[in-house]
């Protein structure tokens, strides 16, 4: 499907280019409806036929992937859901991808959240992703959801020394001490990787400042496109890597598919959202290039 998408898009673009060039060279301006048709096709074809592009992971995204990938099996990874429903379309693909990757690597997964408005989102992820796609994984053994606690960075400040000071049970009301996954866990320092998926405050930045740095635990994450530039300064010293916006999510999803054939059928909302974007951008760029070639050739002819 991916190759097909590639071929179709290339044919489209090449066809578009040639058509536009021929018209321009014969001295005629391209009529607007033709440009509109190309644009319409560029956006609707990926939508209709689910054409996607394999996103090449940028180093900052690849760094996160590699970190999760090369942790020894059974490592402890904590994912914090620091976003609300309004940001979910943009960052939820990231948390979903993180969960899939960690469980596929047989890491132990700890889920929590710092946003009051996002309380149900990690429970939803458990239902939607873990229980459906990884039925063999056992709650309390392979993964645990300890849910939301109020207090923002105050929460981090406490659990960096002791989880049990704030969390007595997981979201299902089971005593932490009764859960095998929490057997040797005292604090955040016992984690091997902290992943924060967030869209504002508190988010990735707070995880770096109040958990990753003081606890000396590798920290990475993903954030909404608006806030991503504010996180760059922490990379690479304090942040292992970062997924920025839907493009970051798409890159991670592509990388995941590349390494794990079992995810061939997994939904990739990030990649799907990038399909029309990529093609439309290529289209616009092609127009600009063709327009300029025609312009310079025309100038040559005139002179």
């Amino acid at each position, binding site marked *: 499907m991916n190759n097909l998408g590639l071929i179709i898009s290339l044919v489209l673009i090449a066809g578009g280019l040639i058509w536009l060039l021929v018209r321009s060279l014969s001295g005629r301006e391209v009529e607007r*409806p033709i440009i509109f048709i190309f644009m319409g096709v560029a956006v*609707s074809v990926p*939508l*209709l036929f689910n054409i996607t592009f394999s996103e090449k992971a940028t180093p900052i995204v690849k760094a996160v992937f590699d970190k999760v990938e090369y942790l020894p099996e059974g490592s402890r990874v904590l994912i914090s859901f620091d976003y609300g429903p309004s940001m979910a379309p943009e960052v939820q693909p990231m948390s979903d991808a993180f969960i899939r990757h960690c469980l596929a690597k047989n890491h132990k997964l700890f889920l929590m959240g710092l946003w009051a408005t996002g309380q149900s989102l990690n429970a939803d992820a458990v239902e939607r992703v873990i229980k459906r796609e990884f039925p063999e994984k056992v709650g309390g053994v392979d993964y645990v959801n300890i849910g939301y606690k109020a207090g923002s960075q105050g929460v981090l400040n406490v659990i960096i020394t002791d989880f049990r000071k704030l969390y007595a049970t997981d979201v299902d009301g089971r005593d932490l001490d009764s859960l095998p996954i929490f057997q040797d866990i005292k604090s955040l320092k016992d984690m091997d990787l902290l992943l924060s998926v967030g869209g504002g405050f508190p988010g990735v930045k707070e995880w770096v400042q109040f958990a990753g740095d003081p606890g000396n635990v590798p920290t990475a994450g993903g954030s909404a496109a608006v806030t991503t530039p504010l996180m*760059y300064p922490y*990379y690479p010293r304090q942040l292992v890597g970062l997924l920025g916006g839907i493009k970051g999510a798409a890159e991670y999803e592509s990388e995941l598919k590349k390494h794990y054939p079992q995810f061939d059928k997994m939904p990739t909302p990030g990649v799907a959202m990038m399909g*029309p974007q990529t093609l439309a951008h290529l289209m616009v760029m092609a127009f600009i290039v063709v327009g300029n070639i025609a312009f310079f050739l025309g100038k040559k002819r005139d002179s």
Partner: protein
Amino acid sequence: MSTARRTSLIILAAVIILFLVSWFAKFSAVQNTGAPFGISVRDGFYITLAAFCSLAIFSFLYKDNPYYKFAEHLFVGISAAYWMCVGFWSTFVGNFIPKVSRTLSDFFEVPFKSFDIFYFIPLILGILLLLRLSNKYGWLSRWSLAFIVGTTAGLNLIRYLRSDFISQVSNTFVPLVVDWEGIDAFFSDFSLAANGQFIMILGNWVVFIGVFCGLVYFFFSKEHKGFFGTASRVGVWVLMITFGASFGYTVMGRVSLLVGRLTFLFGDWLGLID
């Protein structure tokens, strides 16, 4: 009957048939979900209506045509009335009535607050505005205009002075040298990464020079010659680079809008994607 007229009639017939087909198809689709008959008929109609309105607007891309004109005029009429109603209910009934009359408050079923004589002033000013329609007393409407213009001019004067002027000036106060750790450190971090020292310092300089030259470009009482000419030219370059970058950046958002619309057409209406 001229050919053009016949063609347009054929198109009209086709559109109507397609509409009916879509209505029926949508109606069956909705009914399959177990909805009662009346609801299915209604929802099928509404989804089809929404889809045809969207298509009518898209048809403008080809050229101006009767369907676009229809949608355009319908939209104008409906939206003008919409804002009229919203204004009436939320401002007039919601904000004005509770402060002037208990009887009217009861009538409109809004909680009466307390009688406030000052709220008769906007009422009078509003009526003065309506006097525009009279040739003789039209000039009185300027009083209301003067009130609105004066109030907002005062408001804007302060608001822009503070937020667009003073705050922006203060934001420009960034050190041109950031955490200077010696020349070696400076060059060792020679990367375009946002946190590199070189790039931080370069960035601050570019901002400073950009703002400076940009402001020079906006000098009106000075001829753009010599130093002023050079600076204002640099200013225009920075402006153009920015405009280009902003333009390029916006493509993403606009494409998302189109994706949203096409998702409605392909998914909600035609059911081609989920």
